[in-house]
């Protein structure tokens, strides 16, 4: 993609040193942006090419907007945060919903590469005066609600809560006050840099190019160096965005946008009466309950008889929430009550109710809201509490949940987490015994068990593009391989994972070609996605991760779920799982240990594993 105004900002937080590099058209064409370009820059910025700790000052943290963020495409405003996983030392890739990707792109930034560690907690601000570091002061350590209130108004922002400052492995960054930012310790990545928040505000400079040295923070910028803007940016469209490159084919971009909207409107899961646009992703709880794949009582069961008491429609009736979404999204999927409570998404709702064996919708909403305020991963925290109760031989007690969450945030890295995890991250709200392709994708996900990572929810649960048999591994290795490529490619351009239920690479290719003027087809983007995933595999292999990291906990191979209603929820067959994983490794071009072969790495123009 040839976007002459796109730059990557390299910032050393220890010194305040900053440089800005234009993104070459060749690199933009190869990696698009977002998840792919962030991964490429993360790999390139490794000190001496070696793996280090996630919190080593030299270890970079990359924050990149999607390559098409800011162009007004539906479901295309995401950014991606890439760093080293606090759990594994491998890669941690976290999608950043909300307005940050949109804002960064409109600031003319293809990405931020952050190294070093500031001497004190800081906030990185991108606004009409450029890029500045300002001391966080007393805001550091406060809840994210207070942080976002202090930062407002913003085009997009991501912040760390108290869990990040305590060093909790459950620390999760929060975007725009309502969006969870991935799982697996995303909050720790920013906290390790002593960065409380990154915020893009209205009145953007086209090329934010300077940073105040933290030692001088609190002073004023030299405004003579900063381009002035006529007015605030319009979040709805790219027309007056100062940092965005022109569009090679405006009519083609409009056609691509129309095609994306048509597909989203035609998607029952997104725009239907029961879809995410109406109830948020928590709508899935009724499906997991009905399919007997709702993780219950710390995965000892897969059916929760009281699921209807905590369903998304039940929450809707209780709270009459307003919908909040990302810029330009036609199906806003977050729900916020009149009092500011943030209703849980599927993983959070599932684990804050069924996994704990509790059927209290008010408790689930309160717990989710507290988790977001603490910057604590709600499903991971709920899984930890469920595990504590299991070890103690008792059922979780409602009155202890909120205090338990606060304790988890305080305890930092020493807190005990649920062992029912992959790559250190607790399994999400879909029991692997209920969908075998999903089981495989949860195991092999590069950053941990992401239920959207292999797109298996689409065909195994939501019947898109066609329904597949969820109780077989046959054909699932290929499904995960291709699905991962699609999700990774969409992530390169700012695509929302939910919207991949409707929008395919054909439509993304139309948009890419329209913006860049370079003929692009779905196959090109699939290869970009493949390259992205293999690069992440390479980073994991460099960190010493092998096939043992691509494994599900033993419980799922030894214990049955809750059969009934004509549905048999058997334990997974370990030989069948391993055969499917081996098939996936072959398709992905990996060795038996899960590392990229030199042949595949070379074919994808990636460095070989040393």
């Amino acid at each position, binding site marked *: 993609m040839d976007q002459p105004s796109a730059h990557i900002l390299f910032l050393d937080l220890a010194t305040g040193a900053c440089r800005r590099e234009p993104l070459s058209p060749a690199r933009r064409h190869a990696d698009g942006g977002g998840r792919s370009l962030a991964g490429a820059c993360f790999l390139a910025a490794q000190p001496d090419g070696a793996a280090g700790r996630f919190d080593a000052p030299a270890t970079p943290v990359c924050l990149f907007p999607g390559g098409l963020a800011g162009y007004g495409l539906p479901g295309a405003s995401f950014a991606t945060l890439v760093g080293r996983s606090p759990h594994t030392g491998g890669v941690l890739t976290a999608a950043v919903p909300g307005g940050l990707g949109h804002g960064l792109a409109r600031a003319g930034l293809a990405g931020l590469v952050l190294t070093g560690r500031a001497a004190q907690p800081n906030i990185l601000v991108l606004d009409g005066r450029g890029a500045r570091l300002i001391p966080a002061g007393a805001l550091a350590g406060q809840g994210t609600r207070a942080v976002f209130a202090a930062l407002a108004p913003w085009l997009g922002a991501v912040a760390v809560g108290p869990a990040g400052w305590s060093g909790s492995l459950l620390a999760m960054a929060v975007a725009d006050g309502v969006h969870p930012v991935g799982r697996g310790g995303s909050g720790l990545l920013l906290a390790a840099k002593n960065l409380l928040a990154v915020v893009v505000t209205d009145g953007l400079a086209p090329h934010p190019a300077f940073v105040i040295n933290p030692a001088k923070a609190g002073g004023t910028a030299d405004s003579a160096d900063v381009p002035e803007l006529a007015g605030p940016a319009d979040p709805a469209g790219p027309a007056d965005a100062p940092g965005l490159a022109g569009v090679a084919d405006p009519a083609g971009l409009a056609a691509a946008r129309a095609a994306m909207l*048509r597909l989203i409107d035609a998607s*029952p899961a997104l725009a239907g009466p*029961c879809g995410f646009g109406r109830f948020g992703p928590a*709508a899935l709880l009724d499906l997991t309950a009905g399919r007997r794949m709702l993780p219950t009582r710390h995965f000892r069961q897969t059916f929760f008889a009281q699921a209807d008491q905590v369903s998304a429609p039940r929450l809707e009736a209780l709270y009459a929430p307003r919908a909040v979404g990302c810029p330009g999204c036609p199906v806003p999927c977050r729900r916020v009550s009149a009092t500011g409570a943030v209703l849980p998404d599927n993983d959070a709702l599932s684990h804050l109710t069924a996994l704990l064996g509790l059927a209290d919708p008010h408790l689930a909403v309160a717990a989710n809201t507290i988790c977001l305020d603490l910057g604590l991963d709600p499903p991971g925290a709920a899984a930890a509490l469920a595990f504590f109760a299991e070890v103690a031989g008792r059922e979780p007690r409602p009155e202890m949940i909120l205090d338990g969450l606060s304790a988890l945030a305080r305890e930092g890295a020493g807190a005990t987490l649920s062992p029912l995890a992959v790559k250190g991250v607790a399994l999400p709200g879909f029991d692997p015994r209920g969908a075998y392709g999903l089981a495989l994708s949860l195991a092999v996900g590069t950053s941990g068990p992401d239920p959207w990572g292999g797109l298996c929810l689409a065909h195994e649960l939501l019947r898109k593009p066609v329904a597949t048999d969820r109780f077989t591994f046959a*054909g699932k290795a*290929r499904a995960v391989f291709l699905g991962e490529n699609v999700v990774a490619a969409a992530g390169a351009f700012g695509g929302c994972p939910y919207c991949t239920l409707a929008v395919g690479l054909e439509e993304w290719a139309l948009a890419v070609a329209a913006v860049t003027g370079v003929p692009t087809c779905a196959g090109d983007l699939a290869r970009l996605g493949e390259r992205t995933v293999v690069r992440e595999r390479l980073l994991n292999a460099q960190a010493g991760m092998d096939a043992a990291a691509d494994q599900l906990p033993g419980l799922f191979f030894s214990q049955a779920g809750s059969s009934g209603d004509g549905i048999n929820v058997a334990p997974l067959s370990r030989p069948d799982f391993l055969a499917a994983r081996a098939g996936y490794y072959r398709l992905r071009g990996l060795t038996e240990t899960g590392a990229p072969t030199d042949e595949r790495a070379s074919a994808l123009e990636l460095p070989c594993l040393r």
Partner: protein
Amino acid sequence: MSALTTALAGQWADRLARAGLCDPGQGLVACLDDDLAFSRPSSHQALVAACIDRLGVGCVILAPPAEPHRTILEFLAAREAPAIRPRDCETRTFFHDIPVIGEATPAAVVAALARRKGAYLPGVGILAHGALSPEQAFVTVSSVAFAGFVKFFADHLAAARAGTLDAAARTAFAAAVAKLPPPPTEVPPLARGPFADRESVLAAMAEAGRATVELGLVDSVFGNISYSLDGVLAISQTGAALDDLVGGIDCVPLDGSSCAGLTASSELGAHTALVRLDSRRAILHGHPRFAVILSMDCAAQDCAQRDACHVACPRERFVDDVPIVPGEVGCGPRGLVHTMPPALAADGGRRGVIVCGHGVFTMGADDFGVALADLCAIETLCRTRYFQALGTFPL
């Protein structure tokens, strides 16, 4: 495993023939599991194998189209290469266009299938790929055939009205018409309602769905059907085959107390809106071809919405007593959920509504008998009106 894969390929090849998309034994289905398996030996095996290898997909279908689709697609490919651009709803929403492949080489075929889900190779057939299963490729083959059919007959009528028909078009049209299956003359009797329990409802829906497909009023992978009973709407799932609805029906509470409809048809919103406006309980939606074709015929050449009539037609249009309304699939701001239900419920309940470029909705008071009969009658009416518009005798 290889025997199972071969059997799977054979099953989908048979289904191509049953659906009238290929002549028996002509469809070539290739499925890859541990090994690559073909439904039959073919001189095109190497070409198809190369596609599977280079695209990294699990299935490729090569479907030499049965008549009249062969005549139609050959004509359209010759006229419109490098791509056929149908204007029906399915193609607009899901396919964009149908690439015409210039030569029968792996490079040319892969290039086309890397862009689109399906393509046409003149002299050979429809090519389609499925990442997940043969069903994906089958749906694409069916869609290409349907879209080509609709475009061919719609374009012919438009050219006839404009006086721009040439000899080749007339020849192809005559050949295609000569190979059209006759219109259905008899609607089979269906279970009589009202139905008192869920089992009876599901059985009646399955029976009506099968009959709709057998009458040629919908290709099996399209259309939808529902029945309202005691505050619950039983509705076919998204992507469910109407002639195989066992296990493919969702039961959705109409009070909004459950998200069980998350996997229901894309038209769940339209069905629930109809239930609220109209006391009839049975709803049937098919894609009868001549109703779709005639809905795209409009004499208003100077209309400002000429290229957007499927979503923004400003006129009240009818085929006799049956209204034609605009609207896209689903519940978006231009969705048919806003246009079709009030039109069908108007005047105490009409016998049907045609959604422009898309299909027909009908209803029955207590069962599917009247809904199916009306669907059939509307298609026969539209077929008659089509040929009358051309000044020829109805077929």
